[in-house]
């Protein structure tokens, strides 16, 4: 009995609550990144290696617009629109010629794009990190911490974007086209849906989601040319754990993994807490290779 009560006393409850909030906040940003990736994979059959670089590019565009206009919300909007147009152009120039080829070609092409974008960012903006100022500076008391409202706002915004997108998929005209294309590409084309443009549109939407999450993350972690790879790796883990091409699974997996990493960071160094998500990935591959949050295939 004594040992048990000692064990419960050893758990820092205040820390756990703080880390739960932190985990949900990063989890929702990650969910926004990963749902763009899942969307592009589920509909175009493209593993978008450049997704992290679109995230990074979005953050840079946001940082530039915020610095020149002073308005965070304008930066968020401008970044989403500019990166969406850029993504559409990328899809038309590089991915459209590859439709019908082995999907492995698309991972190679998007890898090439990510190299170019990353080096362009380093060359253009330099190696020094930039910061996007927080739009809201109010705090609230969470145990001994002054917890910024901004973080809560990010989580709500990410959830709102994902929710709005889900509603659009369900009820919007283009959303119905997207779902039809993902179910049966040839039949959709036969029904008069412009499938190549659906692909371009989906890629643009995924890019916009990556850019928006980049701007939202900007005030938390700083903007640098290497931020893309970290995020794309995390998003890949999330997408594999959640089940490839499964939107709901990816969102659940994003929050799950971020929470685990946040709890692990109580006892471990943050750079080692990443290993927790690797372990989740390995366990998933061992026991549920189709994904942790999908029904068992029959």
């Amino acid at each position: 009995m004594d040992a048990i009560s000692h064990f419960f006393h050893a758990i820092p409850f205040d820390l756990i609550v703080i880390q739960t909030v932190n985990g949900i906040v990063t989890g929702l940003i990650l969910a926004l990144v990963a749902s763009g990736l899942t969307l592009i994979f589920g509909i175009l059959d493209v593993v978008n290696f450049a997704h992290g670089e679109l995230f990074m590019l979005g953050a840079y565009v946001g940082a530039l617009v915020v610095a020149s206009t002073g308005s965070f919300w304008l930066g968020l909007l401008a970044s989403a629109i500019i990166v969406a147009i850029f993504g559409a152009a990328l899809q038309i120039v590089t991915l459209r010629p590859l439709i019908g080829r082995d999907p492995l070609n698309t991972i190679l092409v998007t890898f090439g794009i990510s190299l170019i974008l990353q080096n362009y960012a380093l060359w253009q903006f330099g190696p020094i990190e930039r910061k996007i100022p927080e739009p809201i500076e109010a705090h609230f008391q969470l145990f001994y911490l002054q917890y910024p409202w901004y973080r809560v706002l990010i989580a709500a915004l990410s959830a709102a974007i994902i929710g709005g997108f889900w509603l659009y998929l369900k009820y919007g005209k283009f959303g119905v086209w997207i779902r039809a294309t993902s179910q049966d590409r040839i039949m959709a084309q036969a029904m008069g849906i412009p499938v190549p443009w659906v692909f371009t549109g989906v890629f643009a939407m995924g890019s916009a989601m990556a850019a928006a999450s980049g701007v939202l993350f900007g005030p938390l972690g700083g903007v640098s040319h290497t931020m893309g790879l970290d995020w794309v790796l995390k998003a890949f883990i999330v997408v594999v754990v959640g089940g490839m091409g499964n939107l709901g699974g990816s969102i659940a997996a994003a929050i799950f993994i971020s929470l685990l990493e946040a709890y692990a960071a109580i006892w471990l160094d943050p750079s080692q807490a990443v290993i927790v998500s690797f372990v989740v990935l390995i366990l998933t591959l061992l026991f549920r290779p189709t994904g942790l949050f999908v029904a068992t295939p029959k």
Partner: protein
Amino acid sequence: MTTAPLDKSVPLSKPLLSHTAVFWIGFCVVMAILIAAPLALPEFWRRFLTEILIWGLLAMSSDLLIGYTGMVSFGHSAFFGLGMYGAAGALLIHSPPNLWLALLFGLAGAAGAALFVAYFSTRLRDIYFAITTLIFSQIFYVIIFTWTPVTGGENGLIFTRPHLSIPFLYDARFTSTTMHWFVLAVVTASYLFLRRLTQSPFGMVLQSIRENEARTRAIGFAVKRYKIVSVLLSGLFAGLAGVLYAIQNQFAAPDFVYFITSGDTVIFNVMGGVGTLVGPIVGAGFFQLMRELLSRLFGDQFPYLIPLGAVFIVMIIFLPQGLLGFARRWLNR
């Protein structure tokens, strides 16, 4: 993607030289050039050529997976890096540093990593395989980067170069020329081994997995076991490249375990032509030469990966077979 040379029809007029003779004459000419090269080249280009051969070996090891088994690995930096750190460990622990012990330790390290990656990631196919190899290589990177007492963390390990020694026969310091010959010997032996392997019944099974995995399984081959062995072999040769790189440069650094190395390996393969074994070496040479040329023309700060990345994308779209793709059938005969 058809390569299997099953065409048994006899040409009407017999060519002057058989295919085998032409192949080996070509092989000897290239070997003669590579053996003589360090005697003619200045120090910088001698080292440059040696490094191309090492990168070529790394890319060639990955070609066994990409071009023959049909699995794209984005995690070869792990095997390369473990080879590097294994060699570093042997050279630091044992004194005087011994070349063959470094090879042994490096290969053991790479084999350990390869076994781990092979066991887990062969459960998945195609892009899923590519993504999981990438994530696994990142695990090794994080471990090496954070385990400072053993791996030196961010700074890596520095050591002295072992002597080029053949027990009881020969013992001398490496010069850049003998280093080149040593690397050339290892790379050539690896090429001949891999060429023989891909033409053996084992290699045929690997190629049949690439062409149609379900059918290969239906015929009765244990596909998963073949895949594990091919990842293991590929990892071993990548580790060998890591050992050579460590000996050439006398350091082991976490940067080489990072994803960039894996990415470069894939680029060398695509540029040179997958499924040819020599193509990746040509790809590595092409990439490194372009890089050197660009940084000489525009200065060291020039982001050479922007034009090279563009060349890479254009090649995937318009020249998916790579530079040596036209000779693919011929080289595999």
